[in-house]
């Protein structure tokens, strides 16, 4: 795909967004901005408030406080909602007896778009041959593509995708990655939530990382990983607290990944081994992990936090 460079996206702005479900605080004063022309990953573990945030943005869930806007307007106040925002939320929301083309014609009608767009977007997502098939016979991957086609029916400036690669095969995932990058290259705003971090690392320009409904980090991938660009060692030990104290004393940056797992950044086995031996720290495992989005993600969302020298963003 070529990469035209027109500017057509709108920013997504989330400010002070808060949502309680009874006593559960799902989203806690969330603030971030998604810029046009870039693919922004919305990352967080299950139950971190990603889907709730996206649903508040689309007016499906009413926030207790704060605002979620597209181009400065609430979604429901947009003069042409489906022509401005395309959303992929769940691949199961189809009537099984409806044919793919009929579904898209219905979507086009609801948004006031030309029904001929149904065939255009079916072709775009690779489902042209299945236009007359009932959705009930579609695989999960085909439903994801159809959901994406629905989102694209109004040729929107902003695309919001919630776990879009669920059910896609490796070819489909690669296709989706290229497709998102192509859409972003047209200047559109792309916000995509996912838990497939390795996949996201290849796709996104920016990341917003949330945990327990709170913002943990945001910015470009480079800025988030800037503090931990060097190789990383993962040390599994029953004496993680003591290891952290030793590393702090030695001025070595580390991240606590779990109760017994510590990522030690910017060091080598040759440097770390003697330090552990000197301090007689029991070690179950020592692996060279490098530095990737996944380890940063785990550090940010584990609730155990970074070492004193490793606080990014």
């Amino acid at each position: 795909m070529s990469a035209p460079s027109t500017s057509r996206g709108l920013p997504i702005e989330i400010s002070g967004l808060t949502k309680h479900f009874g006593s559960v605080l799902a989203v806690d004063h969330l603030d971030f901005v998604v810029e046009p022309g870039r693919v922004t990953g919305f990352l967080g573990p299950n139950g971190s408030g990603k889907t709730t945030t996206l649903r508040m943005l689309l007016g499906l869930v009413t926030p207790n406080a704060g605002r979620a806007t597209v181009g400065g307007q609430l979604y429901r106040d947009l003069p042409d909602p489906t022509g401005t925002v395309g959303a992929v939320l769940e691949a199961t929301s189809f009537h099984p007896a409806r044919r793919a083309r009929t579904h898209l014609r219905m979507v086009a009608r609801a948004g006031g778009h030309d029904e001929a767009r149904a065939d255009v977007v079916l072709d775009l997502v690779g489902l042209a041959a299945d236009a007359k098939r009932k959705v009930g016979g579609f695989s999960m991957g085909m439903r994801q593509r159809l959901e994406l086609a629905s989102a694209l029916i109004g040729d929107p400036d902003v695309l919001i995708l919630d776990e879009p690669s669920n059910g896609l095969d490796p070819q489909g995932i690669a296709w989706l990655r290229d497709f998102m990058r192509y859409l972003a290259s047209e200047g559109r705003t792309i916000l995509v939530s996912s838990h497939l971090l390795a996949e996201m690392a290849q796709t996104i320009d920016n990341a917003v990382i949330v945990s327990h409904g709170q913002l943990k980090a945001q910015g470009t991938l480079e800025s988030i990983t800037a503090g931990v660009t060097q190789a990383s060692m993962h040390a599994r030990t029953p004496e993680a607290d003591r290891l952290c104290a030793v590393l702090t004393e030695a001025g070595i940056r580390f991240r606590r990944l779990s109760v017994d797992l510590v990522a030690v950044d910017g060091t080598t086995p040759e440097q770390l081994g003697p330090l552990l031996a000197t301090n007689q720290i029991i070690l179950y495992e020592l692996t060279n992990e490098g530095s990737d989005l996944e380890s940063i993600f785990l550090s940010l969302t584990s609730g155990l936090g970074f070492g004193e020298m490793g606080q990014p963003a």
Partner: protein
Amino acid sequence: MINAVRAEMLKLRSMPGIWVCFGLTFPLTALFIWAIFAASGGTPGHTYDFVHTLNERRQLLGAGYNGIMFLAPILGVICITSEYRHKTITSTLVLVPRRSRVLRAKVVVTAWWCLLMALLSLVVVAVGALPWNAALGGVTSQVTDQAGAVVPGLVAASILLGLFGLGFGTLVKNQVAGILLTIGGTFILEPILVALARAIFNYDLNWLPTAAAQALAGSLSRGFGSGHDPITHLLSWWQGGLIMLAWGLVPLGFGYFTTVRRDIT
């Protein structure tokens, strides 16, 4: 609003349940036409006879009501509950973020399909019942003269029963429960309540949905067959119409505030 209505039209057209409801109008109307001729007190030696009394002529014209009285509410129930059953409510509300607009569009398309249902029943009467009545020796104009007294009430009752089903569906959300409760309410619960009110309080419980629709439709199904109708005083047609309107709008309004406005998680 027009876009939402057009989308809902296509949505309903592509749902098998809607076609089943619509299609059943045909055999049920035919069945009741047959029953009316069979019960019309035929001359000795004849199984069927033409319709003799004013009441029989009106019943013949409105033969479709007996099916519509439960098919129209079921159609209304399906219209809204299918959104929850197939989880399409999420995409519907993303496509049309103004929820009141979605509900208003559903009111329009439900009314449209119920109107078609009533018209289909009239077509069955026109092409089946009237020629049969003439063949049995009846005078067609004696039946068609009652059109003014029957058709508006039949059409209005069909539409308002559909809206009642739509309103009921917004409260129930579960499609199977909605359909079963509609059938059970029409054929079991309401007759029991009416009978109990009559037996215990000597009171005509004539404002329940079926009785109110019956009044609006010109008592088309009243006294049909059994001769033991426990309601002795139906409301007037306009009272029945107003009460049916309330049976449609009150649950619809209540459903809007309690269900449709809720978070879609």
